[in-house]
C-alpha cells in the first residue's frame, strides 16, 4: 500500500518539472526567481503566520486600543488616559513597577555573578564536573509551580528546613516570605536557584571557546589564577555575559508564576510585580486596567531590552 503511494508520487513531481521547463528558457533573472519561488515558496510562512498573527500580533496591537477603555470584553468605552492615571497614582501599582525593576535587576545580576563563578569552577580540573553541571542545570527543567511550593515550605519561619539549619549555626533567619521587606528578595533568590543553571551553561560554552593561548600567555608572564580570571576569562566571556543579562532581564521583567505561587504578591503588595497586577486586575474584572498594565509592561521591556541589545551588539562587533 505504502509502496504504491511512493510510486505514484514521482509522476506528480515529473509533471511539476515539466511545468517548470518554460521558465528556464526565459531570461535568467526571472528564471532564478521562479525557481526560488518554487523551491522556497512564501506560503511556507502561512501556517505559522496565521497562528502567530491571530494569537500574538493581533492581541498585541489591539491592546494599545483597549488600554484606553473601560472594557467588559463585550463592550468598551473610551476613557482616554484614565487607566494609566490610575496605574500611576495607586500606591500598590507604583510599588509593583518598582518591584518589577528590582526583581529583574537582582535576578539577572546574581545570575551573571553566580553563573560565571560556577562556570569557572565547572570548567576547571574537577572530577564529577559532568554530574555537577547536570545537577545545577536540572532545576531549569522543573515546573515553576513545583519549585515555588517546595521553597515556600522550605522557607517557612521557625519550622522550615532552611530556618532550622541556620538556627543550628547560630543565625536567626528572617520570616522570608512573611516579612514585607524580605518577601520579594526571597522569591528572587529562588528564581536564581532555578535559573542559574542556564546561565552557568551559557558561560561554560563561552569559557570553553576562549583559546588556550591566552591562559598560557598569563602563565609565561607569571600571573596566577586571579590574573587569568580577571584579565582573560571575564573580558573574553563578554558575549556570554550579554546573553545572560538579556535573557534574565526579559524573563525577570515578565516574571509571574514563581511570585504568584510563593507569595501571591503579598504580604500586602510588597512583592507585587506588573505581571501579578495584570492578573489581579483581570480577576477583578478590570479588563481595561489590566490591558493598560500589559501596555506598561510592553513599554518597560522594550525600553530596557531594545537599547541594551543594540548596545551589546555594537560591543560584540567591536571586540
Amino acid at each position: 500500500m505504502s509502496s504504491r503511494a511512493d510510486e505514484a508520487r514521482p509522476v506528480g513531481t515529473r509533471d511539476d518539472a515539466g511545468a517548470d521547463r518554460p521558465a528556464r528558457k526565459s531570461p535568467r533573472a526571472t528564471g532564478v526567481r521562479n525557481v526560488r519561488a518554487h523551491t522556497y515558496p512564501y506560503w511556507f510562512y502561512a501556517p505559522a503566520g496565521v497562528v502567530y498573527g491571530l494569537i500574538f500580533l493581533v492581541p498585541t496591537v489591539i491592546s494599545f486600543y483597549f488600554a484606553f477603555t473601560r472594557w467588559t470584553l463585550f463592550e468598551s468605552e473610551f476613557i482616554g488616559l484614565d487607566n494609566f492615571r490610575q496605574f500611576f497614582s495607586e500606591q500598590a501599582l507604583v510599588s509593583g513597577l518598582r518591584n518589577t525593576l528590582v526583581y529583574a535587576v537582582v535576578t539577572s545580576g546574581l545570575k551573571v555573578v553566580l553563573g560565571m563563578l560556577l562556570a569557572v569552577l565547572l570548567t576547571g580540573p574537577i572530577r564529577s564536573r559532568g554530574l555537577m553541571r547536570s545537577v545545577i542545570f536540572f532545576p531549569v527543567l522543573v515546573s515553576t509551580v513545583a519549585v515555588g511550593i517546595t521553597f515556600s515550605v522550605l522557607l517557612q519561619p521557625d519550622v522550615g528546613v532552611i530556618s532550622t539549619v541556620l538556627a543550628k549555626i547560630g543565625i536567626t533567619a528572617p520570616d522570608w516570605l512573611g516579612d514585607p521587606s524580605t518577601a520579594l528578595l526571597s522569591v528572587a533568590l529562588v528564581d536564581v536557584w532555578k535559573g542559574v543553571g542556564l546561565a552557568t551553561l551559557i558561560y561554560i560554552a563561552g569559557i570553553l571557546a576562549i583559546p588556550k593561548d591566552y591562559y598560557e600567555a598569563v602563565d609565561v608572564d607569571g600571573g596566577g589564577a586571579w590574573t587569568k580570571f580577571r584579565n582573560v576569562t571575564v573580558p573574553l566571556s563578554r558575549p556570554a555575559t550579554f546573553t545572560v543579562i538579556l535573557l534574565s532581564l526579559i524573563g525577570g521583567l515578565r516574571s509571574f508564576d514563581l511570585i504568584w505561587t510563593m507569595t501571591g504578591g503579598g504580604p500586602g503588595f510588597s512583592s507585587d510585580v506588573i505581571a501579578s497586577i495584570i492578573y489581579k486586575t483581570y480577576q477583578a474584572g478590570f479588563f481595561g486596567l489590566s490591558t493598560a498594565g500589559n501596555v506598561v509592561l510592553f513599554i518597560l521591556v522594550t525600553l530596557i531590552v531594545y537599547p541594551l541589545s543594540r548596545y551589546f551588539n555594537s560591543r560584540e562587533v567591536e571586540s
Partner: protein
Amino acid sequence: MRAVRRTSLEVVALVVAAVVFVVPFIFMFLTASKNESESADLTFSLPTEWRILDNIKDVFDARDSILVTAFRNSLILTVVSVTILVVVCAMVGYVIQRRPGRVANIANALVLSGLIIPPAVVPTIWVLQQLHVFKTLPGLILVEVAFNMAFCVLLFRAFVAAIPRELDEAAMIDGCTGLSLFFRVIFPLLRPVTITVILTSSVFVFNDFVNPLYFLPGDENATVQLTLYNFLSQFNTQYNLLFMNIVLVTVPPLVLFIFFNRKIVAGMTSGAVKG
C-alpha cells in the same frame, strides 16, 4: 601549599553547590513518601514508614481523580502543540534562511519581537472568544503554538544554515519542488534539531502555568500545573499528597533529562545565544 588550598576551596564550593541544588529534591521525595501527620512536620528526615505507592494511589484518587484528567489534558496539550510547532516552524526556518530579502527581514523582526514582547493577556482572551475557543483545549494549544513559535523558528533557522544549498539544487534537478522537496529531502535532514525542538518545547509546554491559568481556567479540564496549584490550597494539611503531586510532575522532565541531557542543553543554550 597554594594548590592544596585552592583544591580544598573548590571542594568546599562543590559540596555547597551540591547540597543547595540536591537537598530540595530529596526533601520533595522524602515528604512525598511520608504519612500525613509526619509530613506536616515539614522536617528533613526519613519517613518511619514508606508510603510511596499508597500516596501515589491517594493523590490520583483525590477529588474524583482529577489528576488523571489533568495528566491526560497535559499530555494532549503537549503532544499536539509540539507536533504543530515542529511542522510549521521547520517550514518557516527553512524559507527564512534560504530566501533572504525583505520578506525574510520582516519575518526575522517578528521572531525577535516574539522573544521579547510579553503577550497581552486580556486581548488574547478576547480574540479566543471571537474564535469560540476560549476555555477549550484547542484554544490553549493555539496559544502555546503562538507563544513558543519564535524560539523554535530560531533553532530551525540556525540549523538550516548548516545544510548545503547544493542539496536543494540537486533535488530541484530531480524535479522536486516546494512541499515535496521540503518534506522528502530537507525535513529528514533536520532530524537532530527537530529532536532538540521537541524536547525543549515539550518541557516548556508541560511546565507552563501562566497560559493554562488564563486561557483554560476551571477545574474539569485543568492541566497538571494548574491542578498542582489548586492542590496547594485544598491540601493544606496533606503535605505528603501535595509533594507526591510535585514529584509526579517532576518525573517527566527528569526522565527526558536523563536520556537526552545533551540535546536539551544544546537546545536551551544555542537558542539562547542566537537570540
